[in-house]
């Protein structure tokens, strides 16, 4: 009996010790992980996976393979308008009031034909309509119908110089600190047939909360690449000189430039 009791209390002691050790280990882990999280060298190591992912995922994607397109009946009832609140600048509000007649899309940078497009001009160009799924980096998905002008149509008219590597989208929305939203894609994604500048959503003019008057759809990447409220498209050789140099608003805050995952 006493041996049994001894056994039991020893077991209790061992269990307690194990629990304690587990807790110490766990909080130690947390401290270690958080410490590593602040370590620049370690962060660069983690970030090295991005290039590998980009190369591999693109290598397995056949050229001009289309993202899945859905049916009218699949369109979501709810489509969360994420990101910054709509712009409230005088220009934006004025442009919205007169139905975007005074708004212009500016094309600049390394192109032979810089210029400006009105919304009516964009609508007169060949268009593409697609019902696609929008995948947010947070995890949610929503399906909508988009109509717009393929980016290739703009590129045919602007004629990018051979040095141009990236297409940068400058937007009208800003965050609380006044930083403007922007995004960039490279020529491979810019030339994809489903990469369009959308001016219609679900058969109606693009709503303000979804980026009126013009937003990007780049269907092989996550939602944050799909710049809203576009005012200027710039062709560049490198995006290192723009904002904090990572190629986009969220990229500047640690998110991957390649958002194919």
């Amino acid at each position, binding site marked *: 009996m006493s041996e049994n009791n001894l056994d039991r209390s020893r077991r209790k002691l061992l269990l307690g010790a194990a629990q304690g050790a587990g807790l110490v280990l*766990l909080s130690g882990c947390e401290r270690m992980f958080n410490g590593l999280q602040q370590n620049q060298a370690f962060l660069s190591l983690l970030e090295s*996976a991005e290039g590998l992912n980009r190369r591999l995922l693109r290598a397995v994607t056949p050229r001009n393979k289309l993202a*899945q397109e859905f049916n009218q009946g699949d369109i979501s009832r709810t489509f969360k308008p994420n990101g910054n609140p709509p712009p409230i600048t005088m220009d934006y509000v004025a442009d919205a009031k007169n139905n975007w007649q005074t708004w212009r899309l500016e094309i600049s940078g390394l192109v032979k034909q810089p210029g400006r497009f009105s919304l009516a001009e964009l609508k007169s160009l060949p268009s593409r309509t697609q019902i696609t*799924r929008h995948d947010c980096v*947070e995890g949610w*998905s929503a399906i909508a119908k988009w109509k717009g002008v393929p980016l290739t149509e703009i590129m045919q008219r602007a004629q990018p110089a051979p040095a141009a590597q990236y297409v940068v989208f400058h937007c009208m929305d800003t965050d609380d600190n006044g930083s403007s939203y922007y995004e960039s894609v490279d020529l491979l994604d810019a030339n994809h047939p489903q990469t369009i500048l959308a001016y219609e959503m679900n058969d109606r003019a693009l709503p303000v909360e979804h980026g009126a008057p013009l937003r990007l759809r780049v269907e092989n990447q996550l939602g944050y690449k799909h710049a809203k409220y576009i005012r200027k498209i710039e062709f560049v050789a490198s995006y290192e000189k723009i904002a904090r140099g990572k190629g986009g608003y969220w990229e500047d805050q640690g998110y991957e430039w390649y*958002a194919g995952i």
Partner: protein
Amino acid sequence: MADLVYRQNRITRTTHWINAIALIVLFMSGLQIFNAFPRLHWGNTTEPEEAFLSIAATNDEGDVRGHTELFGYRIDTTGFLGVQNTDLGPAPRAFPSWLTIPGFFWLAGGRRWHFFFAWIFTLNGLLYIIYNVANGHMRKFLLGPKDAALLPAMALYYLRLRKESPQQDEYNPLQKMAYTGVFLILTPLIILSGMAMSPQLNMAFNWLPSMFGGRQSARSVHFILTFLFVGFTFGHVLMALTTGALNNMRSILTGWYKETRPKPEEEPVWLETFTEEMIKKPAKIPVSRQLSAPTALEASPAPEEHPATPQAAQDNGTPSSESANEQSAPEPSGETSPTESKEAKKDVGE
């Protein structure tokens, strides 16, 4: 004799620990990613009212509570899920900071960890599989039809409803089922469901999310499989701790394992070999060495034979007195202990 046998080679040990680290990081960074949208859905999209699992916080006039809702059943999980108690008071958070990497809320960081260690997990797993297929070890722990038939018996044995283990090979049928499930079902499915969330891979392989029933189904499957992995890991660690924790740790750290179970070829005990062993074994204990001194041996050449069946003793045709032999050999069991043999010798001496 406790034999140290070299059981885990360098590749097994290395891949085991890399896998352990990768799984921990994938689990914790995965929860960080989940926290950005703590709901689960089936199909392709996320209509708010259609979530089958959600973790949320409510604030009722300053009373901040965490709730977890599964198929409409809502439970208060304040302090663990939904709301975490911090030094600064209750904070809304699906999974608590001590379960996520990084500990603070940073989706981008969680993604970096997750996608880096997904590579480590995959490459490490590939190395392990290729190595074990090449050396033929894989065959030993994959469940075959013969093992499947033994599964109920093995389960009964574990539940202590059956005395003898039906184990025939190096791994028992339940072990084989667990390993086969993890290798052939769990691992491929968790990798595929993870890949099915990638927009680029959805473009490359339209069937990838469809095979799960949509991208959100894939996300839910990924989450559920995670907890099957956690369950397997807990079972694995529990087994390792309860079947000789130190010995198991030595084996997975250094490769050397102390073999205590008799080897299968030693199990059937033949009379001839048995008598020899009986003499040898007590001989290690000084006291019994005195007892099995030449006098005892000469008086009755093989009193130690008693554990064998009386029939076997007769077959052997020992010249010892029949009565003494019958009295001292009531147990047909093949096992013996020093005390038993001592008593037997006393009988003979009288």
